[in-house]
């Protein structure tokens, strides 16, 4: 690896680490909050929805209770939602640094995404342990994450770069991104199975590039089947286009960040 790329990767690693540390610096639990919080979300959802027999998820083919199906889909959603929302403010939050040291601008939103990815990994481990403990073992299908996780990451990184750059241009973008997450959440089949969506609204859900990703997570982690490739190709295509737009924006706006944000 060329020394420049090595240095950039080292910077990204450090920025992601500081992002993890700084969020909870000075608290008693400190860095462990990055484990405690995802764990708490998973345990609470599972406790609430799995211990009550009134919550059922999906139709005849559904495997597992509402809780595990919800959590399996919630993990990639949280990766996207947290990564993009935090990255939207990354340039603004780091303007003190951007006006002091010439650092590749893309590293800041990427650091936010990296720390979200780490929490995502923690969530996967916790869910995996709980599922195994409960006897839900989808075995080899977990390896399907090696394909699906990069797609989720692609969408997150693309969205993060675009949101960060547009917020640098117009401060209204970050709150708009935050506001857009709620309708996006409800058009993503996280809290409901896709087949319950009325036909008239299904096109909205099908165009949502996160739909194939969360469905694939649920298939791999809970149901124990391989996801359909068509939807994932669509997600990948949207992810690549978003990433391309993000990179163009970073190249265009990155050198002007200190000036724009100063």
């Amino acid at each position, binding site marked *: 690896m060329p020394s420049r790329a090595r*240095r950039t990767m*080292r*910077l990204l690693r*450090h920025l992601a680490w*500081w992002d993890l*540390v*700084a*969020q909870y*610096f*000075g608290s008693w639990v400190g860095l462990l909050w990055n484990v405690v919080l995802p764990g708490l979300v998973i345990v609470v959802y599972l406790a609430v929805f799995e211990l009550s027999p009134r919550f059922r998820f999906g139709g005849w083919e559904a495997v597992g209770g509402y809780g595990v199906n919800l959590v399996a889909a919630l993990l990639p959603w949280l990766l996207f939602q947290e990564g993009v929302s935090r990255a939207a403010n990354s340039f603004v939050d780091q303007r*003190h*640094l*951007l*006006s*002091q*040291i*010439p*650092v590749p601008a893309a590293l800041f939103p990427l650091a936010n995404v990296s720390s979200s990815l780490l929490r995502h990994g923690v969530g996967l481990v916790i869910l995996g342990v709980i599922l195994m403990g409960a006897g839900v073992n989808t075995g080899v299908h977990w390896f399907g994450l090696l394909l699906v996780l990069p797609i989720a990451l692609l969408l997150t990184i693309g969205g993060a770069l675009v949101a960060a750059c547009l917020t640098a241009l*117009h*401060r*209204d973008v970050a709150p708009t991104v935050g506001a857009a997450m709620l309708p996006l959440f409800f058009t993503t089949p996280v809290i409901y199975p896709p087949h319950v969506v009325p036909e008239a609204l299904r096109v909205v859900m099908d165009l949502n590039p996160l739909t194939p990703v969360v469905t694939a997570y649920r298939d791999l982690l809970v149901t124990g089947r391989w996801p359909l490739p068509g939807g994932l190709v669509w997600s990948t295509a949207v992810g690549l286009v978003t990433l391309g737009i993000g990179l163009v924006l970073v190249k265009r706006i990155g*050198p*002007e960040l*200190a*000036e724009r944000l100063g």
Partner: protein
Amino acid sequence: MTALAVRGLWKRFRLRPEKATLRRSNAEHWALRNVDFTLPSGGALGIIGANGSGKSTLLQIVAGVLKPTIGTVDTAGRVVAILNPTAGFHPDLSGRANVRMLATLHGFDRKRIESKMDAVVEFSGLDAYIDQPLRTYSAGMMIRLGFSTAAHLEPDLLVVDEVLSAGDLAFQRRSAGMARQLRSEGCTLLVSTHALGDLATICDRLMLLERGEMRAEGSAEEVVATYMQRVDAEGGAIQPGAPLVAGLRPTAPTNQVRITNITINGQPNPDRAGTTCGAPLEILIEYEASEPVDDAIFRVQFFRNDGLFVHGHNTVRAGVEVGVLEGRGVARLHYPDFGLLAGDYYVSVGIWPDEYRSYTTGEAYDHRPSACILHVDAPRSAGAGVAGFPCSWSIDKEPASVRSTAVYTAEP
């Protein structure tokens, strides 16, 4: 070897409209106009100029955080910059973590960072606070940590904007000493500050920026002289009766004793008076007491136009027994060798009930805060700075064939 080459540098800022809009603003401001200079390795260039002259923009471009609109900036080696008091630190991280972050961003690996940590902390003088979050630091503490970190990052070019004159006096001296040490180790310095005295001790060349353009470049003495002339020409010269920048509160004269006339070198009630460094100066303060006043003190002070209190004297310090003032009289202050160097100074004259208490409350019998502007000329041989003293230089050479002697005396 050239450490910094700035060629035909122009920088344009687009001005933001008052209200946010989606349309691109056409209003623009050229912060730098055709700035062109080089700095050899190990050299030190000080940038001076009024606020808004483009100093910070130039330094930000050299540091690489702003891009030139036109022109090029070439640097050799590691450029380390301190462009603002927070030095890019994260408010939620500790001082130590911030040092690590800054060092990492400058390409240092963990081992090298830790090898320098003790020196950084020791120089900053913040060992008791280094593990506290930055948000608990004062501005001065942040500046100390920022400069200390930057100075220990082995810079080939150190860019410092207004930081050397910040912090407490002890740290200012230490940071100036560190800057000189870095230079002796081959580091190139590009420094901007309004503290002209600091620049003269660190830099061998100065550059004057004015509305983004280079107006002068050369020795500290020449460029500062040009700067002062331009400041005076643009209305920065001190004016009779203008309020002092610092040092004296407004006063409410009691009129028990009034100053009726002030004569400077024989000139009664002058708006402006003149003298020469090393020449005599005499100030007569005529007064009239409407009722007997016991133990009044007479005070004369000299302020530079930036408010610096450069000299003052009073009858208590002189051990003069003033006694009871009744009716009319004259107090006389005589300097056989007036020692201020070239410049314009406010002369403040007052009659006070005591030396300190009334001065802090502003309760004078009578007080003329800027009674007169005293213009002082000084020969080059009188020296540089604020004050000139009779002195002599002699150099004894080995073998003792020739003895070189030069003398400056108070006599002009």
